[in-house]
């Protein structure tokens, strides 16, 4: 098991005052709180910080931890000295911020498992009346599946304690029917599929938060779908009919003469359909692409335009 340097986790000196430790904790907790932070390792860091604070904020635990000595390095293989806690009395209880986080083996070898440690993520809450915990998980859904509906096979890692109280995880396979028209942030609730109930209580629920996978062509905002639509300069100048892909199949789009780059053309109702609401729209965002002058003929055409189409797009810049 690895030694943990709680002082370096908290970024405080070994002789820091309780006030300094509290301030450091508050600051780090705000930075790495999984609801606030965009750092990918936020949840891991937040748990580490919670564990370090659990020890350093409590004078009894801090003194006990300090007397392990300062020669240990973080990550060094650690065995607690045989009588390391002789002469200390832990009043126990009072676990606060991180009380459900599942502390490290290092912590548990020193201070025990406490009464109330729970498996898994920070969002699992202990319940009264023996009802199982609700579990929360995220699932990635492709835009096509969100548009058409689909049945997805999911594999979820479920942390659990075995009868000996050891933490392990097992893989659980679920088939979940994704209804037509889900969008990012929607939650799918699988009743009774969360943690098992205690003493015959009912099982908790499993909530799956939908996250749309990035798509090769389309961008999604809410229920609207955006597509970059490249057009030629002559299509832009003269107008014309072009084929546009949509999630429901290709459609013809009329481009009015004098179209500009960046113009948004709405294809009404061609976005994501949502039951009981008006469906989203698709927007084609025009991009005028000039053909490359990569042959003598093309160069000649561009030179003809330069001669015969007096045009200064920078006139308003005073150029």
């Amino acid at each position: 098991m690895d030694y943990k340097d709680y002082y370096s986790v908290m970024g405080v000196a070994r002789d820091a005052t309780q006030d300094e430790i509290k301030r450091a904790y508050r600051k780090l907790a705000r930075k790495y709180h999984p609801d606030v932070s965009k750092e990918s390792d936020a949840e891991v860091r937040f748990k580490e910080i919670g564990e370090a604070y659990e020890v350093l904020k409590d004078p009894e635990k801090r003194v006990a931890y300090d007397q392990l000595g300062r020669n240990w390095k973080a990550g060094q293989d650690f065995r607690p000295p045989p009588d390391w806690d002789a002469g200390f009395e832990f009043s126990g209880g009072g676990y606060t911020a991180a009380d459900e986080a599942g502390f490290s083996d290092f912590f548990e070898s020193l201070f025990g498992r406490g009464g109330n440690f729970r498996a898994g993520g920070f969002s699992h809450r202990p319940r009264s009346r023996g009802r199982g915990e609700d579990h929360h998980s995220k699932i990635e859904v492709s835009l096509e599946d969100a548009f058409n509906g689909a049945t997805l096979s999911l594999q979820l890692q479920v942390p659990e304690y075995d009868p000996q109280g050891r933490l392990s995880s097992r893989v659980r396979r679920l088939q979940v029917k994704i209804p037509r028209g889900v969008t990012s942030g929607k939650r799918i609730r699988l009743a009774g599929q969360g943690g098992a109930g205690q003493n015959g209580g009912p099982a908790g629920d499993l909530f799956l938060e939908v996250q749309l996978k990035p798509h090769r062509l389309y961008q999604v905002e809410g229920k609207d779908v955006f597509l970059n639509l490249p057009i030629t300069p002559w299509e832009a100048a003269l107008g014309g009919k072009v084929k546009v892909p949509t999630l429901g199949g290709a459609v013809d789009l009329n481009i009015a003469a004098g179209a500009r780059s960046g113009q948004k053309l709405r294809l009404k109702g061609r976005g994501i359909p949502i039951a009981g609401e008006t469906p989203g729209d698709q927007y084609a965002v025009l991009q005028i692409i000039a053909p490359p002058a990569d042959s003598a003929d093309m160069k000649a055409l561009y030179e003809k335009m330069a001669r015969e189409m007096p045009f200064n797009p920078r006139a308003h810049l005073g150029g």
Partner: protein
Amino acid sequence: MIGSQQTYQPDIEYSFSLAEISRCCGVTAEQILVLVSEGVLTPQGSTQREWRFASSDLGRALSAVRLERDLGVNPAGAALAVELLDEMQQLRERVRLLEALFFRR
């Protein structure tokens, strides 16, 4: 249940009663009422008995409860944080959209 394969027909537009959202967040109904009065949650329905909270309210409520518990902020502070986080999320989405549309090449 281990290794079992089942197909679920989920409730997608699930909305929650006051009792259900309290239970999902692991807090008392009083704590949810405070979040409603702070404007974090906006249930539909005129009386508390008829209140229905949307699926998106659950995410906001969970965030607010965790922020209060973990950061030691009061409900008004958690409400402010949740609103700012929502706004940041929307702006991030908007930036991502605009970048993908206009700066890809």
